[in-house]
């Protein structure tokens, strides 16, 4: 069973989509079988048709029973990761999606998908409507994105509150994997001061130590709807997400080890 990881944020424009796309790509470069799922009807993540094939069908069409998994999930050229778009979006289908969210239809589908992958990385809708909450209820991990700006940081308590609530009320397996700071400007003094405050004020490990630097190549990649790693000008930016992916894997490993140490104390190999 693969792990379901939702990328979430209370605020729009915090590089949620960019992070979902590029983190998925990096994880796939590290050898994992990854499905990137666009679950945001308003997100406009038009995944490059060169990657996805020509079909507009996606999650919504699958949930409606109009398509099978293999008709809506597509492997990239190098067969590294698979991508599933949101599908046919209209006012009716958006309402339907919310209904499916409440009735755990989405959760069941995700479970089925997870048999075929190591990770399902989900680009969730902004905020905490029924769809993002349903995604959190079906996930084992959640990663939050935030800019290093006061407005973005001040929106964190709402999202942390929702995660806390989902953990306590319905999904104790949900783990907050960390917060990624995106679009960082390491030469901006105010940002750097804020960055210092984050490190002194927040619990250690809450934020990933790798942050994503602001780089115009992300705009270019967004325009073409591809991971930055697929652009020749995007090597450095892609490396940034590779480092984040590596830190993510390290954290997973450390967590599994500390868990193993807790419940496997007297069941060692020898």
């Amino acid at each position: 069973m693969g792990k379901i990881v939702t990328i979430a944020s209370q605020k729009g424009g915090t590089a949620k989509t960019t992070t979902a796309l590029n983190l998925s790509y990096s994880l796939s470069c590290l050898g994992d079988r990854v499905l990137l799922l666009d679950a945001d009807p308003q997100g406009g993540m038009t995944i490059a048709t060169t990657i996805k094939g020509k079909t507009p069908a996606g999650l919504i069409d699958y949930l409606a029973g109009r398509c099978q998994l293999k008709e809506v999930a597509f492997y990239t050229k190098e067969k590294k990761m698979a991508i599933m778009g949101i599908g046919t979006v209209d006012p009716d289908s958006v309402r339907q999606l919310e209904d499916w969210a409440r009735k755990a239809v989405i959760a069941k589908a995700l479970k089925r998908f997870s048999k075929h992958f190591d990770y399902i990385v989900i680009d969730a809708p902004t905020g905490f409507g029924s769809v993002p909450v349903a995604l959190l209820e079906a996930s084992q991990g959640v990663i939050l994105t935030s800019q290093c700006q006061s407005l973005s940081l001040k929106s964190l308590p709402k999202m942390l509150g929702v995660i806390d609530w989902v953990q306590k009320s319905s999904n104790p397996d949900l783990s907050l994997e960390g917060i990624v700071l995106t679009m960082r400007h390491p030469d901006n003094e105010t940002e750097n001061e804020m960055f210092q405050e984050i490190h002194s004020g927040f619990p250690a490990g809450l934020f990933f130590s790798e942050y994503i630097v602001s780089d115009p190549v992300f705009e270019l990649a967004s325009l073409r709807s591809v991971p930055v790693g697929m652009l020749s000008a995007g090597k450095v930016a892609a490396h940034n997400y590779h480092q984040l992916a590596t830190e993510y894997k390290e954290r997973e490993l450390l967590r599994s080890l500390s868990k193993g140490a807790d419940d496997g104390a007297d069941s060692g190999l020898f």
Partner: protein
Amino acid sequence: MALILDSSEIREAIALASGLTATLNLPVATDAGKVRAITVADVPAKIAQKTTPKPSAEIDPAGLTYRGDQLEQVLRNMCLRSHFGGAVVTDATGLPFAVVNPPVSMEAVSAFTSVLGSALERAGSLLGQHGAEYLSLDINYEEKIILRRFLIHELPYFLLVICPQEVDERSEIEISIDQIVSILDKK
């Protein structure tokens, strides 16, 4: 005056986060990934070096100015002496410091080092042998890959070597590691 720490939203976030991290037992982030002899910008250059020519004669690394060149010379000398196919030194994340004749693309080497490095650590901890630092993997009928983990100031690094299966590589690797450590450890 603090920019954000005084705000009520941020204080609320910290309180919530403390609760969440306590139940999750989040590992404390280390700075391991931050200590690097080369910068992110150097990486494309490293990838371009994939076609490093075969070494022809041993050169004394101490005569070279740059640490990267010295490291690379140590690797080159090692390959030359013991007929190793190629060698790479990386940090814990798989980011290469020095490369000689990488067997596959650098991206794959990084991924490979990081995966094997994790496996080594995990295996060590499962067996209760936290000093496990040596991994040998036959990759086909003729060659093997050796991963040797070593520490500098508590931070893990890796030496990855590809060599013929019949070669006894241990002493050569240990000698080279000593040289690598002394170069990396230099202030």
